[in-house]
């Protein structure tokens, strides 16, 4: 360890993605001095590219499995295999550096799944310790600080809003028109997906450049809304945000009273450094935040920090993306929106009696897959030869997807642990994921994919493929529930303010506090919750400003 450790900070945030950047903005603007330790690099916009080969196929943004592997097994009886399970870019900006940028709100009922569904055998359901009404002001703050493009009132299932969106919806695409037509024919409500892209100039930011290379690509133009262009600059502008990239935290140490004392990390030169702070906030993503607690063993916490209850890492939920795919005679140019510009329905989100599953999820239209040329593929199509070439030629401009993010149920045995064999390039044990879908997950996916197929047929699709889900691979990059928040310290890790029950100066603000996965894309809720938690920290401490 070096002799010249940095000055003690008010707050040390581990991670500078969506949640860490939101917390940093709120805390620094309230006058607190924040040190952020981000394990990945800090890229400026001109370092990002519209290069499908580099970004989608060669780990330019995705974690390289030879450097940051994870392992996966379906159950404790199976041997784990190295797999790129639920990856998220490890860099300043985190997942928002290359995300789809869909920002729907949770509905009021989604905060109370246990009350609404009742007991489901095998599932470890829980109501959220907070309500929609408590989170609504923070949804509003994030939408307006970020600049979200959407149409208030268009989604008839959305809860009450304190006001509309700062920007009108993005321009319509051909594939979204097909989706709206199909929904209208079937009597379904549909709406433009609220988006982190700007439909118009806002707050000094230009309108977003529409590119085919959006989802899974960084943004060389700097015109897309993400943590890099919104909350990081806001925190830096206070002069109180010390953002240190390429700093990989290996452990959080505790003092004699069992409070978090320091974060021990390797800096960019590989030197070991110790950062002390009054309080620590985990913002590494639900997998890595759980892993860091499990790596932080001490006499007081032999099973990992804040894990006396053995709940850390359990109940992990991941969503899963799948879709029905439709082919149309006229071109729909599914790639034109870059995976960014979508249209949605919440018709299958709310729980309904009389189905063979509980819950439901957000359904939205997009291009097929990435949806760029190299990554474009269709079910049942040959991969090589004349037939493959013909299929690409006929389908590339003529297909679209109506997809879902599966609302998977929490199960205690689906969990994140430390792998006992595989280590990362720094020599630390990697996260091992154990996950088997609940029968409800498969039934829900199957039923909704069938509805999606009907939407495509109603819109005039000449051929429809249904891609059912049979396993969860984490292909959404959404990850939640590994450090559940709740009122009972025996069944949750964090209290309702996302402070650890067992360590009173330790918080988590990424997806890990979510008691359930919800049926919507999580990042808006993650950011709103991070803002709420940061506010509670400021209130508890008394603002020094």
């Amino acid at each position: 360890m070096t002799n010249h450790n940095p000055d003690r900070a008010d707050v040390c945030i581990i991670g500078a993605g969506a949640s860490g950047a939101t917390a940093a903005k709120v805390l620094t603007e309230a006058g607190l001095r924040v040190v952020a330790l981000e394990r990945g690099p800090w890229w400026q916009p001109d370092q990002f590219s519209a290069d499908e080969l580099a970004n989608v196929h060669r780990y330019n943004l995705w974690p390289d499995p030879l450097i940051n592997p994870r392992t996966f097994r379906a159950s404790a009886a199976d041997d784990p295999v190295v797999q790129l399970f639920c990856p998220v870019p490890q860099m300043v900006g985190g997942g928002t550096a290359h995300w789809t940028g869909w920002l729907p709100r949770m509905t009021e009922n989604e905060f109370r799944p246990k009350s609404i569904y009742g007991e489901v055998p095998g599932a470890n359901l829980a109501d959220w310790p907070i309500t929609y009404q408590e989170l609504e002001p923070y949804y509003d703050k994030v939408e307006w600080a970020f600049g979200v493009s959407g149409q208030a009132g268009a989604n008839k299932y959305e809860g009450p809003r304190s006001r509309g969106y700062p920007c009108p919806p993005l321009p319509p695409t051909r594939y979204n028109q097909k989706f709206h037509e199909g929904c209208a024919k079937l009597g379904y409500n549909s709406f433009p997906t609220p988006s982190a892209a700007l439909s118009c100039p806002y707050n000094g930011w230009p309108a977003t450049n529409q590119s085919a290379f959006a989802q899974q690509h960084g943004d060389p133009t700097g015109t897309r809304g993400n943590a890099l262009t919104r909350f990081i600059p806001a925190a830096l502008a206070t002069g109180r945000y010390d953002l240190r990239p390429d700093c990989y935290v290996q452990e959080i140490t505790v003092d004699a009273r069992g409070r978090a004392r320091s974060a021990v990390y390797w800096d960019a030169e590989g030197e070991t450094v110790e950062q002390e702070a009054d309080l620590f906030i985990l913002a590494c993503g639900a997998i890595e935040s759980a892993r860091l607690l499990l790596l932080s063993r001490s006499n007081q916490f032999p099973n990992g920090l804040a894990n006396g209850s053995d709940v850390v890492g359990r109940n992990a939920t991941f969503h899963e993306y799948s879709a029905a795919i439709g082919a149309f005679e006229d071109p729909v140019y599914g790639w034109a929106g870059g995976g960014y510009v979508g249209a949605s329905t919440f018709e299958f989100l709310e729980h309904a009696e009389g189905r063979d599953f509980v819950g439901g999820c957000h359904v939205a239209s997009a291009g097929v897959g990435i949806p760029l040329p190299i990554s474009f593929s269709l079910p049942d199509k040959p991969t090589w030869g004349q037939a493959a070439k013909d299929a690409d030629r006929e389908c590339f401009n003529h297909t679209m997807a109506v997809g879902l993010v599966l609302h998977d149920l929490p199960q205690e045995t689906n969990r994140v642990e430390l792998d006992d064999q595989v280590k990362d390039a720094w020599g630390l044990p990697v996260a091992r994921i154990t996950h088997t879908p609940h029968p409800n997950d498969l039934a829900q996916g199957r039923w909704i994919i069938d509805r999606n197929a009907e939407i495509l047929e109603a819109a005039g699709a000449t051929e429809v493929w249904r891609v059912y889900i049979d396993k969860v691979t984490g292909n959404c990059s959404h990850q939640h529930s590994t450090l559940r928040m709740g009122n009972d310290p025996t069944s949750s890790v964090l209290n309702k303010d996302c402070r650890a029950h067992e360590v009173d100066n330790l918080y988590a603000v990424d997806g890990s506090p979510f008691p359930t996965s919800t049926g919507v894309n999580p990042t808006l809720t993650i950011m709103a919750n991070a803002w709420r938690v940061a506010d509670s920290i400021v209130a508890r401490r008394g603002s020094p400003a």
Partner: protein
Amino acid sequence: MVANRMNETEARFFDDFQRRTIEAAMARIIPTDHAPGASEAGTIDFLDCYLSGIDFIYAKPDGSGFERLKGKRAEAWRQRIEIVRRKYLEGIDELNQRGRAEFGDDFADLASDQQDAILTIMEGPVREQQRAREEEQAVSGFTPPEPALQQIAAEIDLDFFPLLVLHTRQGFLADPVYGGNRNRVGWDAIGFSGPQSLAETHAGRYSTLPYFAETAGVTDDEAG
């Protein structure tokens, strides 16, 4: 500009015989018909350059050359290229051994239908795995889907045949800066009106708005 980049991506790994074998296989993976195929796109140049070392892994974001890899990234890519090279050398041996055993000649010297027959045999194990999986799903009450939207296989985990298919597709459809997709013939073949160059996307001059709905302009004006 483009000409300079072609010179830059002339780095090679294969010897002439190896190169001829893979070039012939690629020409069957994406054949030439009334539109260009793998041969015209130069997918062999794309692959040969990729396997030459770690100097052509990532183009610079504006297309003005390639990134120099350092530290753990460089180590990982050295390791990956070594693994992929080994798979190609074994795959080339298998293509030629099968060519001589089945049809009495090296793979590159066989007729197209003979080459297709060998590739079909080599695809076999992959197909078998897929069929086993579909049967399993049928038994558990699912109609056979293909997980087209789940991409969990890492490049180094692929067997030779799917690796060859992947690289042919990459060489046909990746940005021309990597030495394939020559004159954007791959994009033209499937109807993708991609950007003129990485520099166009980097500067924000590339826009897909012309491929939005026809009413897009109206909403755009209202929004502005």
